[in-house]
């Protein structure tokens, strides 16, 4: 993060949560110190509480109807707009990713470029999912029968340590299909996530579609995993296998769809395929008689 530009003393940013389209502090008033990979102080991030998580779920639920009801074309355009905004803030992301993950500027640049490209890739899926994942079903009778994918609803995501590319790779597939997300950012490197939230806030994405919490996954995630108004849980960023198992067990209370942590450290530059899109979609089948 550029501390000083020549003689000028920089104006530092206060990193806050992103809830319902606004940037509040944690209701708990807590913060925690975020350091660079080399130990340098970067910022005090909000230390989100269970009540912040609760508020995030409320905001996400409220956003589901409008966002899932928007046309796929509209969702695609909004997401593409996000990519445009990402591109405009490229330098800021490179700096934050480099600091947070201890990457060289070139490595961080590659990661940010991949993240922007990944976002564009997912944006384009909005109006193709139904054709690729849906079907017309040739049933043995006088019925027209078709299946379409629909968003599952509110998805809680524990984002991985890859602070922007990993984050983008788990958030974009959730929302492109019409879900709303509550995202717990990388605990160690949350600053790119907050900056992403600033991008989202200026990209026509309706408030509440993405809600971003910073803090301790071990503290916040159990409330999300057990929340009865959350439909799915992505545990990709949970490193502790016992915590992951506990969260999966809690998720069973209302039979959330669960994406487990990957078996091996994921290569975020690889072709993501459709698995993450599929994981948060329901297939709805509709029957109607064919007659005169």
């Amino acid at each position: 993060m550029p501390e000083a530009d020549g003689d000028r003393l920089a104006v530092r940013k206060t990193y806050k949560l992103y809830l319902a389209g606004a940037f509040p502090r944690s209701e708990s008033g807590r913060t925690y110190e975020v350091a660079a990979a080399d130990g340098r102080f970067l910022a005090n991030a909000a230390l989100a509480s269970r009540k912040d998580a609760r508020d995030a779920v409320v905001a996400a639920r409220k956003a589901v109807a409008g966002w899932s009801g928007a046309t796929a074309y509209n969702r695609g355009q909004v997401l593409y707009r996000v990519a445009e905004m990402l591109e405009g803030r490229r330098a800021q992301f490179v700096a934050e990713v480099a600091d947070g993950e201890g990457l060289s500027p070139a490595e961080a640049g590659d990661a940010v470029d991949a993240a922007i490209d990944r976002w564009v890739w997912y944006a384009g899926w909005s109006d193709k999912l139904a054709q690729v994942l849906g079907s017309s079903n040739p049933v043995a009778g006088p019925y027209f029968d078709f299946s379409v994918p629909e968003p599952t609803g509110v998805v809680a995501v524990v984002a991985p340590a890859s602070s922007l590319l990993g984050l983008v790779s788990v958030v974009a597939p959730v929302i492109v299909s019409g879900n709303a997300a509550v995202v717990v950012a990388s605990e160690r490197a949350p600053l790119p996530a907050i900056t992403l939230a600033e991008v989202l806030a200026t990209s026509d994405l309706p408030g509440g579609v993405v809600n971003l919490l910073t803090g301790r996954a071990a503290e916040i995630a159990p409330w999300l995993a057990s929340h009865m108004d959350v439909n799915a849980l992505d545990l990709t960023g949970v490193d502790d296998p016992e915590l992951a198992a506990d969260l999966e067990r809690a998720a069973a209370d209302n039979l959330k769809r669960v994406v487990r942590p990957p078996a091996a450290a994921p290569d975020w530059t690889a072709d993501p395929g459709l698995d993450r899109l599929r994981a948060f979609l329901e297939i709805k089948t509709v029957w109607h008689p064919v007659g005169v």
Partner: protein
Amino acid sequence: MTTTAEPLADVAASGATLRRFLHGLPGVDQVGAEARAAGLATRSIKTTAKAFALDLAVRMVDLTTLEGQDTPGKVRALSAKGRQPDPTDPSCPPVAAICVYGDLVPVAVEALRGSGVHTAAVATAFPSGRAPLDVKLADVRASVDAGADEIDMVIDRGAFLAGRYLDVHDEIVATRAACGDAHLKVILETGELATYDNVRRASWLAMLAGADFIKTSTGKVSPAATLPVTLVMLEAVRDFRAATGRQVGVKAAGGIRNAKDAVRYLVVVNETCGDDWLSPDWFRFGASSLLNDLLMQRQKLATGRYAGPDYFTVD
């Protein structure tokens, strides 16, 4: 319009009111109606139930001959068969009616005298219905004057399909008046009505206009009677009685050739309208070859061996 049931007296006040009423009837989903009929067709009617159904079916037959080549001799033979369908079995009941063209009514009336078997005449320029109204009414009066106590008329399908419901209605009303004391069966010719929605509307239209019976078909158009069409018409007479208190009969005519089919129709009557329609007064089969199959099945039940067609008369 004395025959129009009171609660619905205003329905036919104008073409607009009649149209509004008929198009306000619940729709019929083709697939659902056909699935229901097919489901009922899987009923397994055995032993005592079969005996009951076969006898009832015989009693419901309108034994029919409607050919250009019909002769007085054939009508006399048919009448004799109608009075006593199985001469080897005195327990076999007579049929409901003999159904003929108008010019042969006197022959049938004479041959059936004292038997209780009715004489039915097709009229109103059967089967097409394409004649001026005064000709159709003269046709009806001639048959009634000759002694027919049942008149099978055809509706003007052209007018119906064109949406001129009041014309169809008024023609039925006029025919009803021309019938005097004779029972009026109104043939919808469902094979030309294209949809079950139309079958339901035509059923109500005929009943509103005073039909004593509604009948599926002339037998001259394919498809003639089908199980789902008959189901829809039975639903209509059931609902009409619930709405007006007046009971109307149903006649399934054409295409019913064997006992198994006839029993299926009776199952549909039984489970759609119930006991009140399980009588020749309220349900009929318009048929010719059906009767012999019913008789063969009766004999099989009585003797335990399969019957052969050589032992039953053909016309």
